[in-house]
């Protein structure tokens, strides 16, 4: 029976080879509720605990600054300006500048002044209602990203205008956390900020992260999965927040041009790229644009990748995802080139 002991010992040694190669696989995870969503954060390595604490503090800080609903947030203060210039710090000025650049670049599809319309539909308070045509026409007067006057350290909104950074806030938060973690020396981590995924580095074993993209029709299913590292994977879908009234379902992605839920033919748009902010902004904008304009936008820029799933059940993806995208069995995809 000593032989069996010997064999068992050897098998243990064999298993030991595996554990050694892994190096430091310490990981720490946290779940928190912030920015009106559930966030799952996982950091790997010896600094994982420190990284999580830093991330939680940063998320709290940003939530307190960027929320359009919280009184005394930086955004709330800007919205109370009533036509007068409101002083902003460097971070807010930079954020607004980037967001306004997307307004111009996407032909107004991403508009941070959408908040009056968001409020009118009842999304912040969940007291949902359907504004009538006259009200929508009124809203269109005050939803105008082009009218935001941003100077070096002040921002001025016309009376009635209100900012909402909801379309970029989570993406910005992800970028900030990645920045903090990188400073701490964390080389591997995974952020899930309410469906906005951000992968830092590769997985601890050196392999690619594999990020699924939700099936809009079925919460438990995925359409496909994207492999990669150091990437943000952000999805905008009509299923994320909506309400039904009079047999019609209204979702939360409002088209700034109509101030009503975007009816572009998109069911879900996922943008993959290095910057969480950019992916967040573009996923909303490309959803609003609809498949044809989105494809044209990608061909013009080609500095991000996307998976576009239409209401007709068609899926197309950009050529940068070739070899990294695994489609669900039976699902056909078309590659944009």
């Amino acid at each position, binding site marked *: 029976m000593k032989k069996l002991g010997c064999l068992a010992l050897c098998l243990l040694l064999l298993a030991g080879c595996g554990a050694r190669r892994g190096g430091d696989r310490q990981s720490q995870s946290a779940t928190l509720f912030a920015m009106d969503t559930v966030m*799952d954060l996982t950091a790997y390595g010896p600094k994982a605990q420190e990284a999580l604490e830093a991330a939680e503090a940063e998320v709290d800080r940003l939530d307190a600054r960027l929320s359009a609903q919280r009184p005394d947030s930086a955004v709330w203060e800007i919205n109370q300006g009533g036509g007068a210039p409101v002083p902003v710090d460097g971070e807010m000025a930079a954020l607004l500048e980037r967001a306004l650049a997307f307004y111009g670049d996407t032909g107004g599809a991403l508009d941070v002044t959408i908040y009056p319309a968001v409020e009118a539909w009842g999304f912040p308070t969940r007291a949902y209602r359907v504004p009538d045509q006259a009200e929508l026409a009124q809203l269109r007067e005050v939803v105008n990203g082009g009218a935001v006057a941003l100077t070096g350290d002040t921002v001025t909104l016309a009376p009635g205008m209100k900012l909402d950074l909801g379309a970029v806030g989570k993406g910005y938060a992800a970028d900030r956390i990645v920045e903090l973690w990188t400073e701490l020396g964390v080389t591997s981590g*995974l952020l899930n900020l309410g*469906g906005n*995924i951000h992968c830092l580095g590769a*997985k601890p074993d*050196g*392999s690619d992260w*594999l990020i699924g*993209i939700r099936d809009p029709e079925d919460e438990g299913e995925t359409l496909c999965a994207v492999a990669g590292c150091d990437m943000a994977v952000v999805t905008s879908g009509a299923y994320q927040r909506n309400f039904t009234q009079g047999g019609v379902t209204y979702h939360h992605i409002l088209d700034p041009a109509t101030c009503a839920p975007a009816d572009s033919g998109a069911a879900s748009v*996922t943008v993959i790229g290095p910057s969480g902010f950019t992916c967040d902004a573009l996923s909303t904008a490309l959803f609003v644009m609809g498949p044809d304009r989105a494809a044209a936008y990608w061909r013009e820029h080609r500095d991000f990748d996307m998976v576009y799933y239409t209401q007709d059940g068609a899926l197309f993806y950009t050529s940068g995802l070739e070899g990294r995208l695994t489609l669900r069995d039976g699902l056909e995809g078309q590659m944009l080139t």
Partner: protein
Amino acid sequence: MRERRFLTPGEGIVLAVLALGAAVWLALPKRTGARAVLERSGAVLGRYALDAPQRVPVQGANGFSLTLVIADGAAHVEGSTCPDLICQRHVPISRTGEAIICLPGEVSVTIEGGERLEQDAVSG
């Protein structure tokens, strides 16, 4: 003369248990796999569906190269420049857990299951 006995009864039992254990392990139900996972030095280079015939050129370690061939629902290795060619002689693999290894090139091809890929997170 010594060593009259070929095996003592105790030894026979140990070997029988060992062989049986290995045989049961080997006979564990194995499903037909869905993908071949290509790895070099422990890093995943790619995943290839077994139902999509293709040839994947692989640049291995130490200057060796080979071609991963997906054909007839199975994976095998061709055109390896490694010296021992064990990888190239190996029969095509198609069942979960099976693997072809090129030690000189530090390349391994492992078959993984037909179930959904293990996703780290879901965006949406």
